[in-house]
């Protein structure tokens, strides 16, 4: 009897250790605790080009994360990309805020940066942000630089 209880305790400890490891993976390693399934209100914004933006990319105001991208679709009426952002409850943003797509670091992931405007009304569920500034596409910038260089060369 003595031995069988030790065995049970060992097995119990083993299972507890396994679950603790899983718990650590959940809380410490993955982002389940952060912004997963969190409540919020959705606002839409149109971009000419979303570049490398992905679903779950962060949405920031003044560098502080306030939400995530929940959907990216192609709007075939405007022929633009429709991006749906979910912003945490309690974050009130003026309705004339501007959304831009920025890149974190030189080759880092892309995120949506919101610049608050000055309006008295606030964004609410289902609103559309009027101004969306597209992502910078490296190839286009290089193309533009080359083009202007070529134009300069002609002028001389």
């Amino acid at each position, binding site marked *: 009897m003595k031995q069988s209880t030790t065995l049970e305790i060992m097995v119990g400890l083993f299972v507890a250790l*396994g679950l603790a490891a899983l718990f*650590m*993976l959940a809380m410490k390693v993955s982002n389940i605790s952060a912004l*997963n399934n969190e409540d919020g209100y959705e606002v839409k914004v149109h971009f000419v080009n979303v570049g490398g933006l992905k679903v779950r990319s962060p949405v920031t105001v003044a560098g502080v994360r306030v939400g995530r991208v929940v959907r990216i679709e192609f709007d075939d009426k405007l022929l633009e990309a429709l991006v749906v952002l979910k912003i945490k409850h309690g974050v009130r943003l003026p309705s004339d805020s501007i959304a831009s797509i920025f890149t974190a670091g030189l080759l880092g992931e892309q995120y949506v940066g919101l610049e608050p405007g000055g309006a008295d009304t606030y964004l609410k569920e289902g609103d559309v942000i009027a101004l969306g500034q597209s992502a910078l596409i490296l190839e286009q910038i290089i193309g533009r630089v080359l083009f202007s260089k070529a134009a300069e060369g002609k002028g001389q």
Partner: protein
Amino acid sequence: MLTWLARLGRAGLSFFERLGRGHLFLMQVLAGVPGLLLRPRLVIQQIYSVGVLSLVIIVVSGLFVGMVLGLQGYNTLADFGAAESLGVMVALSLVRELGPVVTALLFGGRAGSALTAEIGLMKATEQLSGMEMMAVDPLRRVIAPRFVAGVIAMPLLAAIFSAVGVIGGYFVGVGLLGVDDGAFWSQMQARVDWNKDVINGVIKSLAFGLVATWIAVYEGYDATPTAEGVSRATTRTVVHTALAVLGLDFVLTALMFGE
């Protein structure tokens, strides 16, 4: 020429025969599983010998794998000026791939071979047929508890492996090489997804546990009941487990992360 053809045919037939017998065997074992709810002690005993006794090798290997990942990853990432991403790299490679796969390989070598040898020896010494004489079904009394214990223990061992590996990577990355503590964890939390990465890793380890234990108990039950037969069966367990796990890993990875 004809004998060669005949041999090829016999080899092919025996391969399919073994494959078919293996699946029928699995069905019979699964049929015996519900009966174990009445006798959980049998399963607990097996979890001890399959899981608890494998703990040391899993923890030590996990620690060293994590530490090596930390060292290697740091050297490569530092070239790109992205040493802060070390946490992401260590955690993703452990949770997605190395945790389940290496645990399954170690599990096959440590626990699977022991299961095969034990069951094979029971068969060789006619304990299994003895049980049948006493109207005790060895599939339910001997095989099913071992099978269930393996399937339960494998995901737990893989989770422990991944967690210990991350800690090992943390020791080397932050403690030894001077990566920033906050960046290590925050980048990891930002990039590792619970549903996509951790849960998929658990599903993988569950599938590997099922396959590895199935191979181990089947090889033992199907062994030629001689000393040589048992030793061959044990070797086959380790080899087949490694092949099955690596092959299955590719299929599962393609399904989960192929998009």
